[in-house]
């Protein structure tokens, strides 16, 4: 019983972080209909940049965090402006291919700058594990979860209640109408990329802190793909819930199925879900079911 609760809590904590990164995916997808497959690399880049600020410049964590967010913001704007904007109007598949290329380029650049060595993140959270009832939560996971929840809440509030958020929702819903209301659709696209990059960078810092940084950390991005397919590509609530479900499921698989088959199931559980969801409910749990009327 204890171990079950323990595993579920660990799963929820990881899931919270997945949810945050998934939110980044969804923000970009909703506003611009682009599935950004370079999300994992955004994440890794964020972790590396934050680490560099902490170690090279000896800045305190809060400063490094803010600087990383600013960098992500600029990165989002620049990428949207010079890579994505010229592609507006091109078939969606080419745009997605371009984001894959973008991911590879970012990966290569990180390889060159930070070398492929695996590193541990400088300690930013108090190292003492936390006791919650009868479960023990490693501090990295706990604080990471808190971080992810706060960040997710902030993004949600902006999206739901600020005027910018309303404009983003309007654009996601109907670009023509938004344009005729005086909303600059280009500005909204740029903002979506900026928010998306920020969400993934925070995710990167948290994951880097939990399990160390390497150039290959971005592979988590693929797992998050399973999360958003499960939750529904265009559903923010779905992204968060999907994250929690995948997180818990992954850890439960590790607990119950791995011993039976000698390990390995934990890693593929999210993709197993991905395939099943695509077969039975391709628009995900909360995604908009597209019915084309002609």
């Amino acid at each position, binding site marked *: 019983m204890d171990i079950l609760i323990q595993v579920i809590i660990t799963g929820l904590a990881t899931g919270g972080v997945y949810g945050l990164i998934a939110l980044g995916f969804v923000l970009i997808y909703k506003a611009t209909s682009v599935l950004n497959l370079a999300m994992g690399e955004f994440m890794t880049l964020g972790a590396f940049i934050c680490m560099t600020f902490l170690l090279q410049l000896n800045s305190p964590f809060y400063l490094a965090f803010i600087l990383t967010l600013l960098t992500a913001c600029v990165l989002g704007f620049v990428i949207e402006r010079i890579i994505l904007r010229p592609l507006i109007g091109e078939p969606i598949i080419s745009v997605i291919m371009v984001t894959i290329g973008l991911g590879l380029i970012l990966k290569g650049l990180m390889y060159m700058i930070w070398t492929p060595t695996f590193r541990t993140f400088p300690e930013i959270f108090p190292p003492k594990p936390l006791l919650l009832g009868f479960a023990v939560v490693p501090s990295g996971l706990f604080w990471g979860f808190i971080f992810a929840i706060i960040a997710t809440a902030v993004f949600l509030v902006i999206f739901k209640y600020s005027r910018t958020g309303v*404009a983003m929702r309007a654009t996601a819903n109907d670009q*023509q109408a938004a344009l005729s209301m005086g*909303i600059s659709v280009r500005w909204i696209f740029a903002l979506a990329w900026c928010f998306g990059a920020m969400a993934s960078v925070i995710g990167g810092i948290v994951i880097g802190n939990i399990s160390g940084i390497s150039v290959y950390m971005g592979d988590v991005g693929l797992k998050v793909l399973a999360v958003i397919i499960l939750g529904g590509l265009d559903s923010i609530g779905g992204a968060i819930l999907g994250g929690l479900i995948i997180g818990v499921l992954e850890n439960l698989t590790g607990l119950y199925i791995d011993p039976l088959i000698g390990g390995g199931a934990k890693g593929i559980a999210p993709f197993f879900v991905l395939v099943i969801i695509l077969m039975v409910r391709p628009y995900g749990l909360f995604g908009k079911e597209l019915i084309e009327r002609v």
Partner: protein
Amino acid sequence: MQMEDNKQYQLRLEDIHLSFGGLQALNGVSTGVRKGEIFSIIGPNGAGKTCLLNCINRFYHPEKGSVILEGRDISRIKPHKIAALGIARTFQNVELFGHMSVLDNIKLGAHVHLKSGSLSGGIYYGKSRREEIDLRSHIEAKIVDLLEIEHIRKSVVHSLPYGLQKRVELARALAMRPRILLLDEPATGMNLEETEDMARFILDINEEWGVTIVLIEHDMGVVMDISDRICVLDFGQKIAEGKPDEIRHNEQVIKAYLGEEDITYSRLGA
């Protein structure tokens, strides 16, 4: 004559050319809309009516020609800035924000008039902001009242029947407090009663609010009844312009609508 005429036009289109690949959608259309009138654009399907509206509010970029609003050339302005100049529109196929409520849709129309910074919106409540909000809710109430959509204020838009959606779209455009309102087939797909309501709303908006109206409509009854002037397009060209009575008896217009044997053949490419 030109100078005098130019002055009384609030919105003027000069020699608009627009093509898509080899298709000439608009071929040198020039016309003008006077302040406070109801100006209708009619013509058979594919005549270029919607293209003309799209040129006015900058969705399309004409290859040649200019759009002049109150003496100012607006044909190089960014499309999202058009709303702030006082031009609002509705669409042929309803383009509402489907998952939002009716009131939220109307509020989005007022978006363009909120001047505070984009991130501060909804957080800062100063005095001027208070007043702004009062003014807005006053206008919203007036619009809801005028268009008789009180009972559906809180409903989610995509759950509403088509006729009501069209009304909500009109309400949203009105919330922009436009000086010129472009209406693209507001009565399409409506039954007789709904069409009559819509015609009444358009007249009210024109008379009570003093909004200039540019209307595209296929329902000739409505067009002839409420228009001050009518412009007829056929194959991207203006073939007539004038008062409803003049248009009704214009031979070229009748030809365009009813077809004439040799014209019909030439259209088929013979």
